[in-house]
């Protein structure tokens, strides 16, 4: 051990003793240090009422002064699924792995809508709450988490509508099967939420310095939609482009969902595990970036 290393070790030891001492006496210690991975779980728990009230606020604000209210959740996916059935099913004649085209497109749309709502709304956390964040402190993660949870309401309504069509097609004798595999669906939903949340946090952290990203998010999300197997099954993708499908974690989520619910199509456990790994990676990067940005965002935003 060189002298320098020894000094470093001693210094670290001293610092950790100091911080232990601080924790006993003081409630809050503010320094310039940016911890690499720090999620203030206890603090988030203390602010759980803020979390619930924010969800309530989003809910009330969304439905205020609308006549059709939650019908706005129902109409777009049904109409879109109908349009896709005509455009991609009838005109472009894309094969949908024995799944009735309407159900194929609608399952993709519903899952995609939730993902895109999570990512695009969390991506503006810092910029759209700047006036609040520069006035009062609270654990900032409360907001993106509550966004992903309040979007869940819209998603669940759409999932119910999907089930109605699903039951109808089942009753009509379409080649789809209901099976125990459906128990995996909640995990897939959680994975979508975590992916959207992680990516959104990451983008919002970067936008505190470079606003360019804010402008890039909408077109990027749209492009992602085209490579996420919403309009076509993975089996129709040429061999030399399969790597793109593997890199995109959404492909596995959506394909696995269709397989779990309708029992058609091909999925591989390996691909799904890979997409899970990518999701977790995005989540960790997002949370780290978010934590670093929240300390200095007031100066750069």
């Amino acid at each position, binding site marked *: 051990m060189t002298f*320098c290393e020894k*000094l*470093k070790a001693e*210094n*670290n030891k001293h*610092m950790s003793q100091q911080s232990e001492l*601080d924790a006993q*006496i*003081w*409630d*809050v*210690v*503010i*320094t*310039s*240090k*940016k911890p690499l991975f720090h999620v203030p779980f206890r603090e988030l728990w*203390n*602010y759980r*009422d*803020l979390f*619930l*009230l*924010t969800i*309530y*606020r989003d809910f*009330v*604000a969304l439905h*205020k002064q609308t006549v059709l209210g939650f019908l706005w959740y129902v109409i777009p996916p049904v109409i879109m699924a109908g349009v896709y059935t005509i455009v991609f099913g009838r005109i472009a004649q894309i094969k949908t792995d024995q799944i009735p085209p309407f159900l194929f497109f609608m399952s993709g749309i519903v899952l995609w809508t939730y993902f895109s709502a999570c990512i695009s709304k969390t991506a503006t956390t810092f910029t759209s709450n700047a*006036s*609040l*964040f*520069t*006035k*009062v*402190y*609270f654990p900032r993660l409360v907001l993106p988490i509550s966004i992903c949870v309040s979007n869940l309401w819209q998603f669940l309504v759409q999932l119910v509508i999907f089930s109605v069509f699903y039951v109808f097609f089942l009753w009509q004798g379409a080649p789809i099967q209901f099976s125990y595999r459906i128990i995996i669906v909640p995990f897939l939903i959680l994975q979508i939420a975590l992916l959207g949340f992680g990516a959104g946090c990451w983008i919002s952290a970067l936008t505190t*310095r*470079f606003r360019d990203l804010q402008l890039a998010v909408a077109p990027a999300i749209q492009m992602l939609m085209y490579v996420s197997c919403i309009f076509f099954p993975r089996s129709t993708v040429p061999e030399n482009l399969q790597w793109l499908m593997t890199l995109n974690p959404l492909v596995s989520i959506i394909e696995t969902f269709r397989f779990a619910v309708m029992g058609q199509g091909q999925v591989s456990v390996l691909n799904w595990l890979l997409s899970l790994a990518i999701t977790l990676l995005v989540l960790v990067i997002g949370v780290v970036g978010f934590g670093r940005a929240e*300390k*200095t965002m*007031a*100066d*750069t935003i």
Partner: protein
Amino acid sequence: MPDAISIENVSKIYRLGEINRSQLFRDIRRWIQRKAGVGQGFGNPVGEVGEGDGRDIFWALKDISLKIRQGETLAIIGANGAGKSTLLKIISRITAPTEGTVRIRGRVGSLLEVGTGFHPDLTGRDNVYLNGAIHGMRRSEVKKKFDDIVSFSGVERFIDSPVKHYSSGMYVRLAFSVASFLEPEILIVDEVLSVGDQKFQDKCMDRIGVLIKEGRTLIFVSHGAETVAKICDRAIYLKEGKMAYDGDTVSAIEEYYLDQYLDVKSLDKMREAIKEKNS
């Protein structure tokens, strides 16, 4: 009395100029340098200090050390741009210091700008709960104080209407009421008292008086020497980010006025205010 806040060698640096392409290149270069291990010291939390030729950075605060006892009422005075707001922002955890450490015991409530976080579509009632939660209160705590908050604000009749229909005065009164009933151990007040009509301002001052009597620590920023002298036992005078004076309120204000070539005559008014306070 133990310390409520301990500020040690706190400095804050702002970078001047816009964030643009060269900023991106600088970020990337610095990141590469860091990865390559160039210029890396140890135990040095300074980070961004010492880069460039010093022309593109601005020291908003320089080496401020300060201890505030529990129950003390401290005023921060100084000209515009002296670093008063920056110091308050660091204490209330809105921005991190570039150097130094701040240690805090107890809950900090800041009245930096009231009414932030109010949602126009929610009713006054919902906004009271939401605003309380933003300031770290549990729902049950707000519930206990709800009647006091509403009656202090004087908007009882409109409490179940959306706040977008409120007059700006009503809005601010409700917001101040929430903030002043948060019951934090440490209360930060920054020029919020210039809101509302005279009657409500007097009411606010009374409320602050009550909070002080209850033994809460108060940090107060105001340009009104009278108000400062009436409320605070101690004042610090910040000048260009440095601590220029730390002592009793009257001497600090005198120092400030003389230093800034302000009209010393108005000091007499202040002395009267203090006499009034002591009598």
